[in-house]
């Protein structure tokens, strides 16, 4: 595949936008905000390396390896570079604020309350009360937290008093 670096990098972003999150397939990896960056660099021995920086949502997220593998396979198929590397990065912490507006809407449509926005100053100290969530089914704020821990590390369980539905929310972190 030929073309300038910028054009090829945008082809990479487009390919990544087509990869669903392994645990919540309604949202893509790009909308989840786990891709920190994409870079194409020449290799000293010739050829080029495509590096993707992947930010785990939670340090212990077991889906990270699946994401890594899917990204590697998809980008190798693109034949954009002779080498593809997917590197885990903690250079800045992934935060739930990185989920895009389209991603938040995709979560809501599939029955997950998107996370409360926490702001860039969150360090762990400011979460002194457990977060509230809006019901993804009826938009009521009359909800209660049933369990701050859910079926995966990133999910919490709520109940809506208005439509009487239990639902899950993506944890603000």
């Amino acid at each position, binding site marked *: 595949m030929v073309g300038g670096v910028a054009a090829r990098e945008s082809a990479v972003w487009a390919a990544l936008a087509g990869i669903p999150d392994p645990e919540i397939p309604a949202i893509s990896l790009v909308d989840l905000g786990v891709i920190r960056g994409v870079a194409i660099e020449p290799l000293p021995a010739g050829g080029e390396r495509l590096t993707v920086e992947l930010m785990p949502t939670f340090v212990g997220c077991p889906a990270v390896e699946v994401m890594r593998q899917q990204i590697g396979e998809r980008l190798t198929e693109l034949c954009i570079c002779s080498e593809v590397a997917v590197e885990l990065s903690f*250079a800045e*912490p992934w935060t739930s604020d990185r989920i895009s507006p389209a991603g938040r809407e995709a979560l809501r449509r599939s029955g997950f309350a998107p996370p409360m926005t926490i702001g860039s100053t969150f360090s*762990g100290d400011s979460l002194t009360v457990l977060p509230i969530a809006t019901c993804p089914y009826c938009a009521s704020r009359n909800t209660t937290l049933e369990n701050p821990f859910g079926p995966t590390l990133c999910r919490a369980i709520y109940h809506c008093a208005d439509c009487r539905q239990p639902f899950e929310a993506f944890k603000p972190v």
Partner: protein
Amino acid sequence: MTDLDRETRDALAELLLAMADDEFVLGFWDSEWTGIAPILEEDVAMSSVSQDEIGHAKALYELLAELTGGDADVIAFGRPVDGYRHAALMNHARTDWAFSIARRFLYENADAVRLESLAASAYRPLAELAVKMRREETYHLLHFDLWLRRLAEGSDESHARLAAAIERLWPDAQAVFAPLAGEALLVAAGILPEPLETLRARWLERVSPRLTAAHLPVPAIPDRPGADGRTRRTDEFAWLHGEFTAVASSEADATW
């Protein structure tokens, strides 16, 4: 920061191993509650918290493996009982719910103090990981603070069991801040931004008023923990070690 001298690198390896083993062993103990916790929500919560801890341990073992040129799985599963460096607090079996809650309360607060400090570590990979882990540990802190109050204010029995567990675990909880070989080098290099004894004092300032507020006795403050706080092992831990190494040792060099 790749230009560490040998002594400082060895000291950093001790610090990473101590933290990783704390998270790893506690994660395994509390994963035993999966399916048998007092209420269904707690089956889910303890499982999730334990998964977090094992994940943190994995990330720390990987940092250690990068530093020493080893393999994270071999470090995690390939050591004999006396090769582990978790604090004596993690030597005990899970026992009853009050005991597990007491341990989590003491540990989560100690871990929070440690991570807050390490967020400013001069060793960037550790500082970055500490920043990320803190955000997750906040949920653990809130959860176990709540459980401490719930059991303290529950029945006479829950209060009595919790008070007895705090009393029993108190000396071993100090060992989270037991001195490390080469600690002075780590402090001098800014890798450990504050001495462990400073962190222990901060932890005591934090847990003592919470115990008092829950009408629980605050045991006498022991002297500085001895250097054996991370090397003493028990039969209970030896049993757990047999459990968590069973799969890895059944087929050496297996790949997943």
